[in-house]
């Protein structure tokens, strides 16, 4: 077929192509479920308040600096949420003073959720159980009260420094 007794034929195959990948813009996705368990919680700040009164002129109204009390509560349905205060001690220039001499006056500074229906209270501490600082709070939320403590005006307190301690509690039941 060719000269010299040699023959060769050449086969050239061109054009076998392997395509890898199907699209210029490739996209893939996957999902994950985020699971959270929300439990009842309650948080109070502060849990106690230190009181300080300075009587300069006996007979004047004597009030402490306002105390900001914030309560966060997540309660179960149909629970009543209570924030209470219990005087622990009160002393003056002449020694111990009756805890019933303490008054409080509260006002709402901020409220969210079910706390918007709540009210910060006013009253006089007795010698009995703790007094409620918040009323009408039945659903989860946040309430911040500004509470001013004062000495009863019915008495004329001797001049001098008075100090006291108030314990605060928060619970739902």
């Amino acid at each position: 077929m060719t000269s010299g007794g040699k023959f060769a034929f050449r086969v050239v195959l061109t054009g076998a192509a392997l395509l890898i990948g199907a699209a210029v813009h490739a996209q893939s996705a996957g999902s994950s479920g985020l699971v959270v368990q929300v439990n009842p919680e309650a948080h109070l700040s502060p849990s106690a308040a230190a009181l300080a009164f300075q009587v300069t002129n006996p007979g004047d109204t004597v009030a402490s600096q306002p105390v900001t009390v914030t309560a966060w509560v997540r309660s179960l349905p149909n629970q009543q949420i209570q924030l209470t205060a219990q005087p622990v001690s009160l002393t003056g220039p002449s020694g111990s003073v009756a805890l019933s001499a303490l008054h409080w006056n509260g006002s709402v500074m901020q409220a969210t959720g079910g706390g918007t229906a709540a009210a910060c209270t006013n009253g006089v501490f007795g010698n009995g159980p703790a007094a409620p600082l918040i009323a009408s709070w039945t659903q989860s939320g946040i309430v911040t009260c500004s509470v001013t403590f004062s000495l009863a005006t019915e008495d004329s307190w001797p001049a001098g420094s008075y100090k006291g301690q108030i314990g605060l509690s928060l619970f739902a039941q």
Partner: protein
Amino acid sequence: MAGMKSRTATMLALTVAGVFSAPPKVNAAVMTVSNTLQAHIQANGSLSVPGTTTLSNTGTLFTSFSGSLTVQYRARSTSTGGGTLTLKVTQDFQTGGPSVSRGDLTYSCGAAGLGTACSSATASTTSATAVVTLPSSACTGGGTPCSATDPNSVPVTFTLADQPVDKTGTYTANVQFTISAT
């Protein structure tokens, strides 16, 4: 008899000649085959995430819930392209619980095995937000110029606000991760 000997000798001579003579010339057939294999490698991406991630908190101080997952991914981008790994909340937590649409869910990213990880962002139910940004000529595995590991991974930590107004119960949201490359 003499004729028979003569014929025998002739056959022997022909046989010897046939055995010892040169074989007929053989022409070798040389075939050269040339194949062109053309691999058209395009941009690609794939990922995997755990099916469930649990968010939890400690104490009773309304501290945020948190939980982490690791996204494993593979990517290849072109010299003129790039890519993204994003997340989007496709199903918000149920009514009464935490709310992604309220902005309760944020996330942050750890170091990414390939590309640039996010710092922190707020998750959304309406738009995809970045987890990893892939540069051009990115590729997974095999070492330089690709990443050293295969697959690549990026840790994502979710933080969910613990709002007092959220009612007690168990809630689930669905987060979709998407990787795309060009």
